[in-house]
C-alpha cells in the first residue's frame, strides 16, 4: 500500500537563500497520525504548509519532493497543485475564527470546497455529511449560521468538516487546539481519534505541545532549528528520548498529577540565518563533542528503528524528574499578607447589562506564599488579578493588605501600597513600551515608587538584569530586539524594581514556548526562595499551577467552585468542574504506564 505522505529531503528557503527548513523527510502510512512537534522558530508550520505544496510570500521550496497518495505537490504548476489541495490533502489552521469567512454561512463554507473541485473525478457526497462526522448537527438551522454564532470549539470542528468534504486521504492540522480551552481541546482530540478509526484518515498534527500528541499520535517527529532531530513511536520517544533537546522538552513539561521541578535548557533557539554551521543545538547541549561544531550530525537509526540526529545520543541520560522543592509549610498566620474578602466585580458595557465577572471571592495569601487562581477563559480570574493590582474597581468586597483595606484603584492607594503589589501581564509583546530602552523601563518603578536617584536606579537595573539572567548589555536594547522569553524576564525585573511583597502573575507563561515557560517558572521559584516574595498566580494550566502553587482556587463563571491545598485538590478533586478540567488536561504518560522499552 502506498504511503499517504512521502516527504523527501525538503528544503525551504527565504528569498535571500537562508534555509528555514532543510533535509526534512517524513512518511505517513494510511490511517497513521504523525505528531510534528517543535517550538517557535523550529520550522514546523513551514513544513506543514509545504505538505500542501504551498509556502508563504518571499519563501520557496528549493529542494526535495512532496508526494501525497502518489501525487506530486511540489511542482511549479500552481493550477495543478491547487486542484489537488482539498482533494488529496487538506489543511486545518490554528485559528478557526480567522480561517472561516465571517460573511459566509456555514453551509456556504462547506459548499465552497465542493464547488472548487466540481470537475474532479472524486465523487463528492452530500457536503453536509461531514458535519455528522465531527459531531455537529447538519440541519438547516445550523447551516444557516454565521461563524460568529458558534463557539470556538464548534468553529474548529467546522474547519475540520470543511477539510473532510472531498474525502482526502491526508489532513494536515496546524495547532488546531491552541486557542481552545482544555475541555474543548479534549473533545476535538476525541473527534480526531474517532475520524482516524472510522475513516482510516492519515494526519499530520503540528503542535508545540508534546503532551497533546502523547495521547493522539502514533509517531512523533521533533523539530529543532529547521531540522528533524528525533523521530520514533510516540510512547517510545517520550519515555526514553535519545536527543538531548527532546529530553530537555520532556523535562520542561509540567504535570499536574506528578508535579516535578521544571528544568530549563540554557540559551534560546536560533532563528533562520543565525544557525551555527554544525549541530544547531550544540551551544545549548550538555553532551556536546568537538565534532558537533564542525558538521551537522546525520539522522542515525537506532536498533529499535528510532531516528536521532546526534553524535552522542547513546550517552543521553534518562529523563529525571525531580520532585518540586517542598516549601516550608506555612502555619496559618494571624495576619496574612493579602486578604480578599467577598470580592465582586463586573464589566460594564456601553450597551446592554453589566456582565458579572466575579462574585463572592474570598481568599488569603500568606507572606511568601503562592496561591493560584485557575479557570478557563471567562472564569473571572484575570479580573480578580486586576482588582488586586488596582486596575479594576470591584463592585463589592474589599482587598486588605497587611490589615489595611486598599482603595479600589491604584491612584487612590498610597505610594507604599502601590510599591508592595506589582503585576506582570500575560503578553510580553505588549507589556513593554516599544519606544523605551530596557534599562529605562526597569528603572522607572525604582524611581517612582522607591524614590531612588538616577545613579542608584542605574545600579539597581544592573543588579536586576543579573537576577533575571539577562546580559547587562540588554539594558541598552529596545523590546523589539528581544525574544518573548527575554521580554517576560524584563517584565519580571520591572516588577522587582519596586521591591514588592506580592507579585500578581497574570498568565505570565501562556504566550511562551514550553522550554521558555520552564525557565520563567524556575526563575519565579528562585525569587520566592531568595526574596520571600508572595505570588498570586493566575493560570489555566493545571500542570503549571501544580509546579508552583501551594494553594489553589478553581473558578467557574466567576465563582469559586473548589479551593484547598494544591496536591489535595489535584489528586482528589471534589467538584465536578474540577474533575472535568483535570480529565481534559493533556499530560505525558507516566513512565510506568508506558509499556515500551527503548
Amino acid at each position, binding site marked *: 500500500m502506498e504511503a499517504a505522505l512521502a516527504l523527501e529531503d525538503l528544503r525551504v528557503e527565504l528569498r535571500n537563500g537562508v534555509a528555514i527548513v532543510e533535509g526534512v523527510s517524513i512518511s505517513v502510512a494510511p490511517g497513521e497520525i504523525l505528531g510534528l512537534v517543535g517550538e517557535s522558530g523550529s520550522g514546523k508550520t513551514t513544513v506543514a504548509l509545504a505538505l500542501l505544496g504551498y509556502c508563504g510570500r518571499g519563501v520557496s521550496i528549493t529542494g526535495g519532493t512532496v508526494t501525497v497518495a502518489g501525487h506530486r505537490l511540489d511542482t511549479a504548476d500552481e493550477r495543478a497543485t491547487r486542484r489537488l489541495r482539498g482533494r488529496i490533502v487538506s489543511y486545518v489552521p490554528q485559528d478557526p475564527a480567522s480561517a472561516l469567512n465571517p460573511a459566509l454561512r456555514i453551509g456556504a463554507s462547506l459548499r465552497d470546497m465542493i464547488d472548487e473541485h466540481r470537475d474532479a473525478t472524486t465523487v463528492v457526497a452530500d457536503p453536509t455529511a461531514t458535519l455528522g462526522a465531527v459531531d455537529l448537527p447538519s440541519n438547516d438551522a445550523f447551516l444557516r449560521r454565521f461563524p460568529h454564532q458558534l463557539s470556538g470549539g464548534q468553529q474548529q470542528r467546522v474547519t475540520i468538516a470543511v477539510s473532510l468534504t472531498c474525502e482526502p486521504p491526508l489532513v494536515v492540522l496546524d495547532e488546531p487546539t491552541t486557542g481552545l480551552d482544555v475541555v474543548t481541546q479534549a473533545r476535538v482530540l476525541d473527534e480526531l481519534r474517532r475520524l482516524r478509526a472510522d475513516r482510516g484518515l492519515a494526519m499530520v498534527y503540528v503542535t508545540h505541545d508534546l503532551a497533546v500528541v502523547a495521547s493522539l499520535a502514533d509517531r512523533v517527529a521533533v523539530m529543532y532549528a529547521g531540522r528533524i532531530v528525533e523521530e520514533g513511536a510516540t510512547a517510545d520517544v517520550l519515555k526514553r528520548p535519545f536527543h538531548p533537546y527532546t529530553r530537555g522538552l520532556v523535562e520542561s513539561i509540567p504535570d499536574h498529577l506528578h508535579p516535578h521541578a521544571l528544568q530549563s535548557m540554557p540559551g534560546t533557539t536560533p532563528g533562520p540565518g543565525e544557525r551555527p554551521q554544525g549541530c544547531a543545538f550544540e551551544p545549548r547541549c550538555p553532551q556536546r563533542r568537538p565534532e558537533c561544531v564542525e558538521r551537522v550530525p546525520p539522522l542515525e537509526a537506532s536498533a529499535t528503528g528510532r531516528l536521532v540526529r546526534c553524535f552522542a545520543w547513546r550517552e543521553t541520560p534518562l529523563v529525571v524528574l525531580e520532585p518540586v522543592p517542598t516549601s516550608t509549610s506555612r502555619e496559618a498566620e494571624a495576619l496574612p499578607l493579602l486578604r480578599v474578602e467577598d470580592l465582586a466585580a463586573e464589566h460594564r458595557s456601553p450597551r446592554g447589562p453589566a456582565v458579572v465577572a466575579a462574585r463572592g471571592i474570598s481568599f488569603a495569601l500568606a507572606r511568601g506564599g503562592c496561591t493560584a487562581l485557575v479557570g478557563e477563559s471567562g472564569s473571572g480570574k484575570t479580573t480578580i488579578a486586576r482588582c488586586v493590582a488596582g486596575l479594576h474597581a470591584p463592585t463589592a468586597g474589599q482587598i486588605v493588605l497587611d490589615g489595611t483595606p486598599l482603595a479600589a484603584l*491604584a491612584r487612590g492607594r498610597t505610594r507604599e501600597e502601590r510599591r508592595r503589589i506589582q*503585576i506582570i501581564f500575560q503578553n510580553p509583546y505588549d507589556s513593554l513600551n516599544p519606544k523605551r530602552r530596557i534599562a529605562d523601563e526597569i528603572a522607572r518603578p525604582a524611581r517612582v515608587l522607591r524614590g531612588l536617584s538616577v545613579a542608584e536606579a542605574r545600579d539597581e537595573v544592573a543588579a536586576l538584569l543579573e537576577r533575571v539572567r539577562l546580559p547587562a548589555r540588554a539594558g541598552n536594547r529596545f523590546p523589539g530586539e528581544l525574544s518573548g522569553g527575554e521580554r517576560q524576564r524584563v517584565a519580571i525585573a520591572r516588577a522587582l524594581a519596586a521591591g514588592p511583597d506580592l507579585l500578581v502573575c497574570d498568565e505570565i507563561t501562556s504566550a511562551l514556548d514550553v522550554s521558555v515557560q520552564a525557565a520563567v517558572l524556575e526563575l519565579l521559584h528562585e525569587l520566592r526562595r531568595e526574596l520571600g516574595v508572595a505570588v498570586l498566580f493566575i493560570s489555566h494550566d493545571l500542570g503549571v499551577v501544580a509546579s508552583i502553587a501551594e494553594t489553589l482556587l478553581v473558578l467557574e463563571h466567576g465563582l469559586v467552585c473548589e479551593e484547598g491545598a494544591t496536591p489535595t485538590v489535584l489528586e482528589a478533586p471534589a467538584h465536578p468542574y474540577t474533575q472535568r478540567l483535570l480529565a481534559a488536561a493533556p499530560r505525558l504518560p507516566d513512565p510506568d504506564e508506558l509499556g515500551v522499552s527503548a
Partner: protein
Amino acid sequence: MSRLRFARTPSGAVGLALLIAVIALALLGPFVAPNPPDEPIGVPLTGPSAGLPLGTDFLGRDVLSRVLFGGRSVLVLAGAATVLAYLLGAAVGLFAGHNRRFTDAFLMRGADIALSFPPLIFLLVLTTGLGTSVSVLVVGVALVQAPLVARIVRTATAEQAVRGFVEAAVARGERTTAIVRRELLPNVAPAIMADVGLRFTYSIILVASVNFLGLGLQPPSSDWALMISENRSGLDLNPLVILAPAALIALLTIAVNTVGDAIARSLGRSSVEAP
C-alpha cells in the same frame, strides 16, 4: 542617519527636494528680488519682457519680485496655524484617548460640534467679529483643524491605552501627564506624523482661500494667494501673474504631502523593525 530614512525612498527624495526648493524660494526670495515688491515700475499687466521675466501686475509692479516676496506669508501663516492646531488637537486627543470616560465624551462631542461648521463660514464669522488680522487668521485656521487632529490622535491613543505597559504605569500610580508623555506620545507619534502633511496642506489652502477672499492679509502685502485674488481681472493680459503664484502653491502642497507620506511609512516600519 535614521531620521532621514524616509528620504531614501524615491517618492520621499523627490518630495524632499521639491519641498526644500519651494521653502528656499520663499525664505531666500526677498534677498534676490530684483525690484521692490510694492512699487510700480512699469505699465500694468504687460507680459514678460527683458527686465521683467514674469511681466507686471495690475498696478504695474514686478510679478517676479512679488512672487519671491510672497511665499513667506503662506509658509509662516500655514505653518503657525498647523503647529497650533497640533498643540491643541494632540493635547485633547491624548487626554481623551487615555481617560475614555467623562473627559472623552466631553472633549470629543465638543470636537464634533466644532467639525459641524463649514470651515470657511466659521473663518468668515470669526474675521467679521474680531477683525482681519494675522493672528485671527492663524487662530481661526488652527481652530478649524484642531478637532480633526484630536480625533485621529484620540483613536491612536485609545488603541495604545489598553496595552500592558500603559496599565503597568497606571498600576504604579503615575500621573496622567507622565503617562501621556512617557508611554502614549512616543507610540502615537507615527499616527500623528502620517497626518501632518495633509493638515499642513489643508492649512495652506485655508490661508490662501481667506487671503483670496480679502479677509486675511491686506494689500499691498505680497502674498501668493492675494496675488491670484487681486489680479483676477488681468488673467487674459498677463496669465503669468496668476499662474506663477498658483503653481507655487500647488508645488508646496504636493511636496508637503509627499514628504508626509514618506515619513509616515518609514515610521510605521521602524516600529516593527528593531530601531
